């Protein structure tokens, strides 16, 4: 071996020895030194996070210096993902995600060191859930048993699910797992196959002021118990609905509309429930749920956007639901250049920003500019304010080449 080879080998050996030595020192320091400053009692609770129990503070913290607050090796969920890989994969791949999990804020619900609740929860399960979902606090006359017992997890997954509302399984399967499929129950439902009925269409899952936990907004014949108004009709198509709502078809007679194939039942049922709902207009499910059934790609794209418009699930805030003459069916008319839905909330924005309408034509397609020329509020983007490019140059030079 020549002299340079010998030197290289010696340097490598020294490095390995140094690494082993420092690693050992860190462990020793962790086990012995952290509690010298940090009160050990704060870590002694019913449930202790494994690294804390093993006195391996260094698994999450660097005792000397780190980029992240709390001397953490990594930020938020990235750190947790190091050990909880399976859960992280589920959160990323499943269709519906709990907001804190989506934003990597594990500490919203969990204490990273120790807690007196299972799963290191910050509080008892129901108070913890209601700390964000405070709309469920209002006491109503009738309460669903699991909800009254504080068993949120009887129906919901805490992190993610492939079912809406993070349900553990499809709604009717979940309901029938407790509510036996008896003839009494079937009779109440016109002897329909209960396995094919969406229970949540009519029933509140938590609490309600109506008997049988029926939802608040009810279709008039349903409310009056006149099931035969619709169920005895010879016609199950759109004509059934038009019998009572004859003028509604005019709102669909627009160049772009939501007329959907209705070979078995009325296409109105794609978005509206004929029985009961919590949404005005008897819309199906929670805001946006009816839209998601056809526009799932839009929701998936939005999920991956960094900057999203507030309340972006409330499609009805910005879009016409029946028909429109404008692509994407925004609210308002062409006189407002398609900006009506934006101006409802951002009424003063046009006073200080880029001119729009006939004052400025988009050189890319010759159309009068509107809010969506620069913003993409529906999909969200990776830029602040849902801009379509960076606000300094990337966006502007598309039209202002000499900028």
């Amino acid at each position, binding site marked *: 071996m020549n002299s340079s080879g010998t030197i290289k080998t010696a340097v490598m050996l020294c490095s390995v020895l140094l690494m082993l030595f420092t690693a050992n020192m860190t462990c020793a320091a962790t086990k012995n030194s952290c509690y010298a400053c940090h009160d050990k009692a704060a870590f002694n609770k019913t449930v202790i996070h494994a690294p804390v129990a093993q006195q391996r503070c260094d698994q999450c913290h660097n005792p000397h210096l780190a980029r992240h607050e709390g001397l953490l090796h990594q930020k938020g969920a990235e750190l947790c993902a190091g050990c909880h890989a399976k859960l992280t994969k589920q959160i990323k791949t499943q269709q519906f995600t709990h907001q804190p999990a989506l934003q990597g804020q594990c500490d919203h619900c969990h204490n990273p060191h120790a807690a007196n609740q299972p799963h290191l929860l910050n509080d008892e399960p129901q108070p913890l859930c209601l700390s964000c979902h405070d709309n469920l606090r209002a006491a109503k006359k009738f309460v669903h048993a699991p909800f009254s017992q504080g068993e949120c997890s009887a129906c919901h997954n805490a992190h993610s699910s492939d079912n809406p509302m993070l349900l553990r399984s499809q709604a009717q399967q979940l309901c029938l797992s407790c509510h036996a499929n008896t003839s009494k129950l079937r009779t109440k439902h016109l002897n329909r196959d209960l396995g094919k009925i969406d229970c949540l269409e009519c029933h509140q899952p938590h609490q309600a002021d109506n008997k049988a936990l029926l939802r608040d907004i009810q279709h008039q014949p349903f409310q009056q118990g006149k099931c035969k108004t619709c169920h005895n009709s010879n016609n199950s*198509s*759109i*004509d059934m609905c038009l019998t009572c709502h004859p003028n509604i*078809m005019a709102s669909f*007679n*627009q*160049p*772009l509309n939501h*007329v*959907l*194939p*209705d*070979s078995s039942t009325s*296409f109105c049922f794609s978005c509206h429930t004929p029985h009961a709902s919590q949404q005005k207009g008897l819309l199906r499910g929670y805001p946006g749920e009816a839209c998601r059934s056809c*526009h799932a*790609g*839009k929701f998936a794209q939005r999920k991956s956007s960094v900057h999203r418009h507030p309340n972006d699930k409330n499609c009805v805030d910005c879009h016409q639901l029946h028909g429109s*003459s*404008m*692509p*994407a069916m925004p609210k308002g008319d*062409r006189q407002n250049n398609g900006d009506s839905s934006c101006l409802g909330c951002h009424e003063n924005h046009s006073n200080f920003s880029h001119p729009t309408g006939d004052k400025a*034509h*988009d050189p*890319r*397609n*010759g*159309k009068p500019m509107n809010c969506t*020329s620069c913003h993409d509020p529906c999909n969200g983007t990776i830029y602040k304010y849902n801009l379509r490019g960076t606000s300094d140059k990337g966006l502007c030079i*598309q039209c202002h080449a000499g900028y």
Partner: protein
Amino acid sequence: MKNKTIHFSIWQVGAITLLASLLTVSPLYAKAPTWVSELVFPAPQQVSAPIAMAIDSERQRYYVVDSHNGKLLSYAADGAALTEFDAAGELQNPTDMTFARPGKLWVVERARNCLLYIDMNSKQVREFAPMATNGQKIFIGRIASDSEHKLYVSDRFSGRIYALDDNLKVVTSFAPQAGGHFIDFKIVGNRLWTLEREQQAVYQFNLDGKQQQRITLDKVLHFPYSVAVSSSNQLYILDRAGAKIYHFNAAGKYVAEFGQKGSRRGQLSYASQLMFDWQQRLCVVNQGNDRIEVFSQQQ
């Protein structure tokens, strides 16, 4: 002379292998033709959110349906504006058109959900509301006519295509398999091609209603909206939400794709229809950009 052995490091060998493989493989990719925006019309501000077009291959003219302004506009092969027509104010929200016998047009009038039969010579406009075989009114989506001027309409309610006789009675029904709904169709020669969204398939029928083929597309699209079939039976599918055009071969195997969302030339915004012209150029009704974009193939 002294022999000299050349030694390569593992990195050098890797780089040479990669380069060689790229050189070998690249001609395979070069075979996929690219589509380039060759022609754009009308001029800015002439139409507003065009929704459909028709092509007169004999006279080499393009016709554009301007639903918002209630007009039909014609353009020469080079995109130059020729005429505009509003049927003396009878057109409110036209959404599609096709040619009937010479000098006559069929137009879908969405505001009244009816068909208009327009005699261009006498300027007479007649209104019809065809009914499906079950007695239900047809909610007309797309229309087209064959070489014998027989009219075909798509029904948004049933998701079927109907061939109508001169009295607008349904003579042939083109139905998808259970659970499917046709959203667009084209007539090419003596074949009717339809696009089915839910199962992402293209059907080929004889004009007498007999199904010839059901072609399942081997790539999942975001929001398939329109189909065009080339003279060599290549399938082109417009994905409206994804702002892309996908090319599949006659067996439904994915070949290529082009297009991206945007406002600049060659980019798509809420495109609503695909159609081949007499030169086998692919015409796109670029609705959100207020223009028709004609793409030609370049090797």
